[in-house]
């Protein structure tokens, strides 16, 4: 047990997937040739005037509402001043003391089912910087960096949390479920690889029982949640080592090297945090119409975390079912359509189990396949009615994946209907006669041997035997029950 308690807050930058940039009509693009989506505004030519993208405001509000944030009745933009080649104006338009979304909170569900609630300090709008690539010898005899302004001016929402997190794994849990929520809201692609979602963590430790905050370091720009989790754990360990040896933590930006597991300190840039914010005179205040905000609130989709709770409490699903089925909005929609028509728990089992397993071969997702939610529901009903056995149902599913036919039609065409008990009884009688040792075991009270008979009966009937019927008939034949 460590003598120190970690205290962690995170800052998440989310690129909004609007069509155009924050303050100009340049199209957003990823992967296009450099500097093919620019204009005088996002290149900061003299005399230009930025105009706010209404859709960026809408999406910021949608995010704020999902995080339970107070929506500012009136918010303004500020200039954050610093010099860097990825920032042509020498300031970033951001928000400072009156962000569009104020305090809120977000609850995630840990693997063990416990809930993790994290305070949201704010969520504000700003513009992304351009992409700076460090060249290093691409030109003969010269070293330099190159700037691509396609990304410059992309709308960003920065979400800042309270220092409520206590471990790397909680940070990863929180971020994964926050990401999932943002995907459900349809506001961003949230691709860590492409940088449309980026997370920094502020990490400090303090003696257990203390309520003061220790000196924090900032772990920057990890491009996966797993690396961020490991980086935080490594940084906590580093700080513990320093403090237990009587040293002091210096406030700096640190970098985690996933390959080596090492933490390195980045040069702290002198005075780099003196941003001299002041209100952006080129932009007027944003005053969202309360009626608009209310309509956005009413239109919010059911979000994954509450949805998971409801699936468990009201639909009889396991926590794991609920977690798997809320993986994407598409999967939720697919499951919900099936569950409206047949037993939800059985639909959940078939969708997350056999359907996804069989689709793995084609690489399709359920909603992309020929199997509709109604097909799944019909199959579940056929099983419940005893029309098909479980092994036969798996074959029916395989047939549906190929043809897109109704399950009843596949049962018909493949002759997969469960055998009636009269036909089955004859096969069971033969099996019992052919396997006297196993029959004796059953007489000796070893019920486990019933599994053997079920297996044999399945083989004999090509999977058309109903396992319950087989067990009943074997007992009748052997024990005279």
């Amino acid at each position, binding site marked *: 047990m460590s003598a120190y308690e970690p205290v962690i807050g995170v800052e998440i930058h989310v690129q909004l997937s*609007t*069509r*155009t940039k924050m303050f*100009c*009509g*340049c*199209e957003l693009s990823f992967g296009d*040739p*450099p*500097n*093919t*989506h*620019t*204009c*005088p505004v*996002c*290149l900061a030519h003299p005399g230009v005037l930025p*105009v*706010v*993208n*209404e*859709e*960026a*405001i809408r999406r910021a509000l949608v995010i704020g509402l999902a995080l339970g944030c107070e929506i500012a009745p*009136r918010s*303004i933009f500020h200039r954050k*001043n610093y*010099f*860097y*080649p990825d920032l042509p104006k020498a300031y970033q338009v951001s928000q400072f003391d009156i962000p569009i979304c104020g305090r809120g909170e977000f609850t995630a569900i840990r693997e063990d089912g416990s809930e993790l609630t994290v305070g949201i300090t704010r969520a504000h709008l700003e513009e992304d910087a351009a992409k*700076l*690539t*460090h*060249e*290093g010898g*691409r*030109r003969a005899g010269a*070293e*330099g*960096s*190159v*700037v*691509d*302004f396609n990304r410059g001016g992309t709308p960003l929402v920065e979400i800042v949390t309270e220092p409520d997190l206590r471990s790397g794994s909680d940070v990863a849990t929180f971020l994964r479920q926050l990401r999932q929520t943002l995907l459900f809201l349809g506001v961003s692609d949230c691709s860590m690889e492409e940088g449309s979602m980026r997370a920094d963590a502020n990490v400090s430790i303090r003696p257990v029982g203390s309520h003061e905050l220790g000196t924090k370091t900032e772990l920057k720009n990890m491009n996966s949640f797993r690396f961020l989790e490991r980086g935080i754990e490594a940084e906590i360990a580093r700080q513990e080592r320093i403090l237990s040896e009587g040293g002091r933590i210096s406030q700096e930006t640190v970098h985690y090297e996933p390959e080596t597991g090492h933490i390195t300190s980045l040069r702290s840039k002198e*005075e780099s945090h*003196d941003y*001299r914010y002041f*209100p952006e*005179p080129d*932009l*007027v*205040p*944003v*005053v969202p119409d309360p009626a608009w905000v209310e309509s956005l609130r009413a239109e919010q989709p059911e979000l994954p975390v509450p949805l998971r709770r409801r699936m468990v409490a009201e639909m009889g699903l396991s926590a794991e079912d609920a977690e798997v089925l809320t993986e994407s909005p598409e999967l939720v929609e697919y499951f919900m359509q099936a569950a409206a028509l047949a037993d939800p728990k059985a639909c959940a089992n078939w969708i997350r189990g056999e359907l996804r397993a069989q689709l793995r071969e084609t690489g399709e997702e359920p909603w992309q396949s020929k199997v509709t939610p109604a097909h799944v529901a019909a199959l579940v009903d056929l099983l419940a009615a005893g029309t098909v056995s479980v092994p036969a149902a798996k074959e029916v599913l395989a047939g549906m994946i190929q043809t897109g036919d109704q399950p009843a039609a596949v049962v018909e065409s493949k002759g997969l209907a469960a055998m009636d008990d009269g036909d089955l009884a004859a096969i069971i009688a033969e099996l019992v006669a052919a396997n006297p040792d196993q029959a004796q075991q059953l007489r000796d009270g070893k019920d486990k041997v019933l599994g053997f008979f079920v297996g044999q009966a399945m083989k004999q009937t090509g999977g058309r035997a109903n396992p319950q019927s087989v067990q009943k008939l074997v007992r009748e034949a052997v024990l005279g029950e």
Partner: protein
Amino acid sequence: MIDESTVNHVARLARLRLTPDEQQVMREELSGILEHIDAIRAMDLDGVEPTTHVIAVENVLRPDVPRPGLSRDDALREAADVVDGSFGVPRMD
């Protein structure tokens, strides 16, 4: 009167190199501005909305519709250095 080191700090943040004469001028001019702000601070401003913009206009927004921008050649025309379609700058890492 603000001190020299404050003037130098602000100048450095703005990437300005000031001669000793200019530093003196800046000290006086910046001090004048700050005194003006002190005069405002001394007033009773309870209930007065802070001014963040000089014109009373709100919600100037545009629809999320793409508009044509610059060709790459035009965008790069005034660049001091061009490397493969990008702006070349001194090494920054």
